[in-house]
């Protein structure tokens, strides 16, 4: 079946068997291997992507079902090639990753949480990542990374807001 998917702001097309999951299509047909294949039956969260901004498991969705949504993978969150976004940066700094297998899923999940809730409590963070397994870090540093990213984003947003206010005053 022919599919046309909106992935990271681009329309990507392929001719796929209906049984191909979005996960396999991303990895095999669209060359986006940042999305990890873990359990392939919905348990681990390694395959998390954002569908219309909300985290979902790419292994629990057939690619033929995914047209019409805005799909974001880990490749779509960095501001430019070779750069990291705030959440990615925070993960590096706090050692929020070791082997890195869970990391794309964790980062996308955190990304969606912070877009929705700029002041997450520890509980909110733990809830948000409760569907993502990590076999290495023990989660402590991941939670810390998300807390730090939240802090930074608040500062950035406050600065931007102040900048806008200044411009308006001047203008």
């Amino acid at each position, binding site marked *: 079946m022919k599919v046309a998917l909106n992935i990271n702001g681009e329309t990507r097309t392929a001719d796929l068997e209906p049984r191909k999951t979005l996960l396999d299509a991303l990895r095999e047909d669209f060359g986006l291997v940042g999305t990890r294949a873990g359990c392939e039956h919905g348990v681990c969260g390694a395959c998390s992507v954002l569908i219309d901004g*909300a985290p979902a498991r790419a292994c629990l969705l057939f690619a033929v079902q995914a047209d019409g949504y805005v799909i974001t993978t880990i490749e779509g969150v960095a501001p430019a090639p070779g750069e990291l976004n705030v959440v990615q940066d925070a993960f590096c700094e706090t050692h929020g990753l070791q082997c890195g297998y869970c990391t794309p899923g964790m980062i996308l999940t955190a990304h969606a949480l912070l877009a929705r809730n700029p002041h997450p409590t520890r509980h909110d963070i733990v809830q948000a990542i*409760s569907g993502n397994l990590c076999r290495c870090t023990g989660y402590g540093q991941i939670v810390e990374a998300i807390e730090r990213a939240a802090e930074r984003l608040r500062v950035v947003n406050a600065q931007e807001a102040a900048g806008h206010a200044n411009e308006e005053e001047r203008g």
Partner: protein
Amino acid sequence: MKSAPFDYARPESLAEACAMLAADEDARAIAGGQSLIPMMAMRLARPTKLVDIYRLPELHGIGSDEDSVTIGAATRQVEAEHSPTVHGLLPLLAKALPWVGHPPTRNRGTVGGSLANADPAAEIPLVAVALGAKIDVTNLNGVTTYDADDFFIGPMLTALAPGDCLSAVRFPRWRRACVGSAFHEVSARRSDFAFVAAAAQVALDPEGRIAGAALGIGGLGDRPVHVDTTALGGERPQQLLIGEVVRAGTHEIEAMSDLQASASYRQRVAVGLGTRALLDACVDAVGRDAEARRRGLA
């Protein structure tokens, strides 16, 4: 972990979906797919055709009238979880939804999908049985309505026949003054399958006596069960009495046993959780009543 091959179709209307399902008895309806796709990946399910009902407008939305709150089968769990209608008129379901799967599976998973899947430990079927919800099933011949209690037959087994499409669920509203609810669950970790879950709703009369009580227990038997609480009618909420009634209502249920929890453990937890849920529902009722009065005075 790859599904066996199948055909895929996305009908434009419920009628067309029913026609497709009727034409092939091995076809399956798919909505959020959060339970069906893992089953297919493990080859426990091998439908010949998936009829995708996820985007059918007729199956979407949450509405209410005097007597009930109706939720379209393909309404996403996350929508129900954040719906003001559900919070206002169906607080028991609002309390149960955060326990359903994980946030990412609730983003795709649907209310009807959870009912049709009929996992004995699932929260939405449990609330449906506890409150005596009605389940609408549509096929080529029209709509049949089932009582939730008759709809669930066994583990992953419902009254749905080939060609049927679950289309909506209607939860009754309790239109009494002083109503409270509570939901409790025990699992290995939050958002894992429940070993046992309890959903309770209670109405109190102006003297603080129990005017009506509903209790459902999930995870204990091979389907969610409604516990007979008629003995509580007219009584004051009292732990000892409630415990007795819950024990009497659950001890004959044949409890499941698996690697994680034995049957006798489940029995004990069911009594404890059921009692706690009823007591907490009474406390909730008193609190809501006080709140309503305060608002009335203010």
